[in-house]
């Protein structure tokens, strides 16, 4: 465990990260320094290493080389069990597929996040999130009875349930229309702000470009200018 020292404001720091799946497949990842409360978009087409990057940032895929610090903690210097615990308490994850646990209710899915992280199950917090994300009526329902939009909201609520310092979202809008995309992004940014969390979204969805001040480009041109982009380059509108 290392302290960031002077870089206190930086919540997420990735340096010199490389991941090799095998001798022929190597993903070189850009250096990242994301500050507290910042909303960062990582843009890239399929195969540019977005998922690899997100998994490494989430502490579920150890990079072959490089270092990741979250809130000053070197995540991959920790034992796996400690890293699991850290992830449960400090990182909220949102996936493209919502993948709620279908045998338990909406409320139980939220409480599950606390249970798995080994922290107190704050029922009031779960109820507040249900109200806030407009899933109050469905709080005792099984996920199979929910609409896609409701599932997405539950997924977001589950990610922020433990008041994480970092929220990572993988392709949260890829299958949504423009209206739903606007709503989801609004919800994500609002919840991140409410939790005081840093938000990192990994996507290939160009529609999100204008919503984020901080963007990192992966694997070429992501955007609207029609020119090839530089891998890992931070762009500002």
């Amino acid at each position, binding site marked *: 465990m290392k302290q960031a020292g002077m870089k206190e404001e930086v919540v997420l720091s990735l340096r010199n990260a490389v991941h090799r799946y095998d001798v022929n497949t190597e993903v070189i990842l850009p250096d990242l320094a994301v500050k507290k409360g910042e909303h960062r978009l990582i843009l890239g087409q399929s195969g540019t290493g977005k998922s690899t990057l997100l998994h490494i940032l989430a502490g579920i895929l150890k990079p072959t080389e490089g270092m990741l610090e979250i809130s000053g903690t070197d995540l991959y210097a920790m034992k796996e069990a400690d890293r699991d615990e850290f*992830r*449960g308490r400090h990182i909220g994850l949102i996936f493209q597929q919502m*993948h709620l646990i*279908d*045998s*338990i209710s909406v409320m139980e899915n939220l409480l*599950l996040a606390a249970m*798995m*992280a080994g922290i107190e*199950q704050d029922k009031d917090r779960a109820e507040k999130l249900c109200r806030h994300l407009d899933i109050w009526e469905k709080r005792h329902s099984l996920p199979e009875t929910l609409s896609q939009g409701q599932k997405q909201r539950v997924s977001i609520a589950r990610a922020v349930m433990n008041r994480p310092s970092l929220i990572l979202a993988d392709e949260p809008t890829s299958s949504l229309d423009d209206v739903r995309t606007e709503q989801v992004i609004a919800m994500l940014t609002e919840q991140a702000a409410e939790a005081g969390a840093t938000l990192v979204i990994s996507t290939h969805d160009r529609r999100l470009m204008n919503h984020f001040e901080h963007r990192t480009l992966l694997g070429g041109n992501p955007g609207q200018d029609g020119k090839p982009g530089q891998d890992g380059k931070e762009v500002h509108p």
Partner: protein
Amino acid sequence: MNLWTLTIASLRKRALNSLLNILLLSLGIATIVTLLLVSTQLEDNLYENAEGVDAVVGASGSPVQIILSSVFHMDAPTGNIDLEEAVKVIRHPMVERAIPLALGDNVRGFRLVGTTTEYPGRAGAELSAGSYWDYEFEVVAGSVVAEALNLQVGDTLYSAHGLSDAGHVHGDHGLMVVGILAPTGSVMDQLLLSAVETMWGIHSYEVDTYEVDTEEQDSATVSAADSDHDHTHAHEQDIDHHAQDDHAGHTHAKGRPVTDTSYLNPANLDEQITSLLIEYRNPLAAAQFPRFIMDQTNLQAAAPAIEITRLLGLLGIGLDAIQIFAYILIFASLLGIFIALLNSMKDRKYDLAIMRSLGAPRRKLFTLFTLEGITLSLAGTILGMILGHTAVWVLTGTITEAQQFQMSAFRFLPEELWLLGISLAAGLIASLIPAIQAYRTDIAETLTKT
């Protein structure tokens, strides 16, 4: 939320599958529990009833048959023996005690046994009402008989010839209930006891004459020819309570006075009894006495301990076969649990990855799956035990032999705890491979594939 509620929710989600696995396991467990209860209680009851009886002497024939008929009152006797020959046995120096048994009649299927008061005494029976017989035709009822026939001291019974409830009723002579035994848990509860002379008297009543004790007739001579009225009436109802008897005009013959040794009167030597329950004077007799019976008489001496062991051995082959079948059922159900958990593991691979991403350590997922296996096996075992005890309860309520052996559905055996432990361990083993696979869930790989 905890692992237990998560387990129950997961099993509930696959309700039909879970239920079938539980049911399959419970059938195997129920079979084992039923066999355990029946065989243990049968064995205990057999040995308890034979306690204090070193040998049974009776007419030649099957040794098992004479033990079953004279000790457990289950089978037909091998025949009768002359009292004259029985007396030689009774007076043998190696015999500490010889209790005579005279069988051949029943009251509504309950056997009437001519014997001495030593017979109930040997079984530790005590009177709950009345007294033992002082005269011929006085009977003492076992607790089950008294309850089944609603008997009270002073009631009159009519016995029927034979050992089952289908023979010719001796309606021409009533037997008065003078005592009722407290429950013993032995075969004694199922019997009606009287003096040996009563059995002789019932069957020779047609030719003998006795003083009759009735309010309507101060003295009477009853013969086969003029007993038609009583006989017919007895067929209609072979139990009369005292108050009714007075009106019906039945005759209660008070026979001759009897004692525990009066049957040995030389005047009775031409009579017959069924068997003798022998208690040896010393252990050496076990080797010598049967040889004496074989060499010096036309009788046979059967040792209950040997015959019970032989009987249980024969019975054991059948029980073993059923037991093997039950174990196959249990194995099949555990295999079912294993397959169900394995499939569940595959179906829930993403769920497990999500749980890991939420911070669950590997051991938590391992525990989750072993908990599911243990829960299924625990539910199957408990249901099986309930079914097993219920099966014994149904058996004791419907099968006469089970009632005769005083089997209880509410007896719990230490073996059942073992069964529970073994079953839980097997459930744990069945869940180990799926649990290990859950433990090894690679979050990144699983999430990347979806």
